[in-house]
């Protein structure tokens, strides 16, 4: 395996260096650096969106989710992602139209311009910072722990985390968003290929799909239905997860930005369908990996299950490709998020372009350091932390949608309500506020309340508008 690791690792590093140099060569303006020239075609657009969406948690977290909680994991992620593709078709059109009207440097800047209040931009930036940094951290931590378990003699966990953060920073700072997009394309391809190979091996081991589920039924029949052995997948949990995942392209800036920088609307639509197909196929491939774990590694720790299933039970070339793929997966999502945080800050800054770029680059380093520190301190629940990140940023969906869909500035009361909801949700994550209000999940309750407040505010302001403006505004939505 070491030989293959050197060969494949060398090839990956060489491609990454080439991509960074090529991307750097093409940068002539700040827009090229931050927005990749806003001219991304279908192939790179699809792969960068998919790779940014599917991070380390796909290959490290989801198999364990299937192993522990059963087939409800499919509804949790795959059905939600298919729905998300439909949302992209609808949302991207309105977003791109508004971005064309107002100019687009980042979502935070767009919020400030649409609301006519700098507080809307600050709130968005604060929200994404609070909920993206832990997500960045948990990914690099997850891969650090995994690599330390597989190669115990090489580096300590913090050493792996630091190496990954430094590598990300180098190519992000040098090549900008285009370098990130190239690395995403590479990672997306590697991730899908190795997952397919491992899944095929798992099914083959059972002798077929029917035999696989028959074996799982003998071991733990509760895995084959909802709510799963631990009762996680209640209808309410799945519905709340569905809603927050639908809102991921609306509220997570690394994905929202990608909807704007794709060449044109038709390409964006094609990209949405391709991402949906990628998501469904990828998660379908993860089902047998989880079922394999449920039969052969039911009582093992996560790390033992994963290191055996995706590394030690595989042929050396596949194991090496998995290790490289995992490092690439962690980097491609985390770098996009760190870069997006930098972009969002830039969109709120004014003044000389060179100074703004210098501050942006410095901020990217600071966000990476924050990610590194949180990674050293955070827990190991990859999928659940990813869900918290999705749910936290989803609280800003009504804020963003009100800005994008209405022609006239929405009221600042929406900004205030979103701030309160974000604080309440953060309180529930940290244990200060209960997670449930009676029998209702707090995240679901907050999302519904925010949506109603936003609708009431828009309705009230719409009625107060002169008739001609009101009809123009309604038509635009």
């Amino acid at each position, binding site marked *: 395996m070491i030989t293959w690791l050197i060969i494949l690792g060398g090839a990956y590093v060489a491609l990454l260096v080439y991509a960074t140099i090529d991307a750097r060569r093409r940068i002539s303006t700040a827009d090229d650096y931050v927005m990749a020239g806003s001219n991304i075609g279908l192939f790179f657009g699809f792969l960068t969106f998919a790779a940014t969406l599917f991070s380390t948690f796909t290959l490290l977290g989801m198999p364990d989710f299937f192993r522990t909680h059963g*087939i409800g994991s499919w509804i949790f992620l795959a*059905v939600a992602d298919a729905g998300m593709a439909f949302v992209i078709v609808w949302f991207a*059109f309105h977003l791109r139209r508004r971005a064309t009207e107002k100019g687009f440097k980042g979502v935070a800047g767009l919020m400030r311009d649409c609301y006519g209040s700098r507080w809307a931009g600050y709130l968005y930036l604060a929200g994404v910072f609070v909920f993206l940094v832990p997500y960045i951290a948990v990914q690099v931590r997850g891969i650090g722990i995994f690599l330390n378990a597989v190669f115990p003699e090489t580096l300590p966990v913090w050493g792996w985390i630091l190496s990954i953060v430094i590598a990300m920073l180098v190519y992000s700072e040098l090549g900008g968003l285009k370098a990130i997009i190239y690395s995403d394309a590479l990672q997306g391809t590697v991730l899908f290929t190795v997952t397919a190979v491992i899944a095929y091996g798992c099914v083959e081991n059972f002798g077929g*799909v029917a035999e696989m589920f028959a074996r799982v039924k003998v071991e733990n029949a509760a895995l*084959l*239905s909802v709510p799963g052995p631990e009762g996680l997948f209640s209808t309410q949990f799945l519905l709340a997860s569905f809603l927050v995942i639908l809102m991921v392209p609306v509220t997570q800036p690394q994905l929202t930005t990608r909807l704007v920088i794709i060449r044109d609307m038709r390409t964006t639509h094609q990209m949405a369908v391709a991402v949906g*197909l990628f998501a469904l196929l990828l998660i379908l491939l993860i089902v047998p990996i989880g079922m394999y774990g449920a039969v052969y590694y039911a009582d093992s720790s996560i790390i033992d299950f994963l290191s055996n299933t995706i590394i030690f039970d595989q042929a050396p070339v596949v194991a090496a490709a998995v290790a490289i793929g995992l490092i690439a997966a962690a980097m491609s999502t985390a770098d996009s998020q760190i870069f997006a945080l930098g972009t969002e800050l830039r969109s709120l800054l004014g003044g000389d372009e060179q100074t703004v770029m210098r501050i942006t680059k410095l901020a990217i380093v600071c966000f990476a350091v924050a990610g590194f520190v949180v990674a050293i301190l955070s827990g190991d629940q990859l999928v659940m932390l990813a869900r918290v990140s999705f749910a936290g940023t989803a609280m800003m969906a009504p804020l963003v949608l009100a800005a994008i869909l209405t022609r006239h500035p929405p009221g600042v009361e929406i900004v205030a309500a979103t701030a309160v909801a974000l604080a309440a949700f953060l309180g529930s994550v940290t244990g200060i506020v209960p997670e449930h209000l009676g029998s209702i999940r707090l995240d679901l309750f907050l999302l519904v309340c925010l949506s109603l407040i936003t609708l009431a505010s828009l309705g009230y302001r719409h009625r107060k508008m002169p008739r001609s403006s009101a009809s123009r505004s309604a038509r635009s939505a």
Partner: protein
Amino acid sequence: MTNKNEVYWKLCCTVFYILSGLTFSPLILSPGRTEPSLGGVPYTLWTTVVLGFSLLLLTFIGTRVHRAVAAKPGELP
């Protein structure tokens, strides 16, 4: 956007709501239910696989009827 496209797009949105609602209805999310299975695949999994790919097909149809299709070159954002 032509009237026909507008109707088709609204129809797609309606089907999206129906499919989403169906996914979380007791018809699909019935606790402990594994039968009838399809080729050995438990009930909740194969029905939601069908629903997932139906949503994707709907997305594809949506891209064919969305107002962006009817726009002239240069009109699109």
